[in-house]
């Protein structure tokens, strides 16, 4: 539900419950029964709960406009990876062998 939808929902139930209640009161007064008034009020309340609580599509007609996405910063230069380390070690090993051979 967007902001205008929230405002609309609030407006709807604020007026509808009162209108239902007043009509129910008038009916109750002429029937001389408070039960009639109470039932009318309850009907109004339940109607407004169905109307204003779920996120109906009419409350989503003015979606919030978000800013366009800011591009992420450029990645830093790549560090040495495991592959490279292994290669270096291999080179060192080869060099050691060579020196050994020379000593002999």
């Amino acid at each position, binding site marked *: *539900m967007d902001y205008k939808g*929230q405002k609309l*929902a*609030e407006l709807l*139930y*604020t007026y509808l*419950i*009162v209108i239902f*209640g007043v009509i*129910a*009161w008038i009916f*109750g*007064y002429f*029937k*001389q*029964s*408070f039960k009639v*008034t*109470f039932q009318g*009020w309850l009907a*109004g*309340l339940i109607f*407004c*709960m169905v109307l*204003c*609580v*779920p*996120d109906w*599509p009419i409350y*989503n007609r003015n979606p919030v406009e978000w800013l366009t996405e800011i591009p992420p910063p450029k990645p830093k230069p790549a560090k040495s990876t495991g592959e490279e380390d292994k290669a270096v070690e291999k080179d060192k090993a080869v060099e050691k062998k060579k020196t050994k051979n020379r000593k002999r």
Partner: protein
Amino acid sequence: MLLSLESGTRSMHTYWVRLNAVFFYGLNVLLGLAVMTWLSCLQQDLGFGDYPQPVIHKIKMNDLLSLRSHGGVDRALLSFDLAADLRPAFHWNLKQLFVFVLAEYESESNKLNQVILWDKIVETEEDAQMATDNAYIKYALVDQGNELRNTTVNLYVVWDHMPVTGRLFMNRGKGSPFELPPSYR
């Protein structure tokens, strides 16, 4: 469809907020309706204008069955006549009337003693018209001490308005005095 689903999961808490708002706003409206109902009957309750008012035609002690000392305290058993028309008390904001017969007397120890002798819950307008002769009391007239002999007791019919909404209040008819005998019998 996808969009509404997504916004639904993102703002899940607003369902509870709105449900709470609608329900408690509704309760406030109900309070307003209740106050309006109370106001609509106020004139009749207070007896302004030419509204008919409840009438007690008769309340009278009929027969004294006994006046005895019962474990140190005085106790009287009696019967009474009652004729009343409480229908004018009824309107759409009245749930029921609690009607009772009250004995009031002054004794040496207490300035005012009040004892309920009989009661009835009147729920419908038809029942509000009452006429009984020689009805026996439900609850004995028991004194705090032993000072019932030679006392003047006033009998009243009191009716308690119990409304659907609004304040509770009582009305009473005219008292009807009778003398208790000077000795036990």
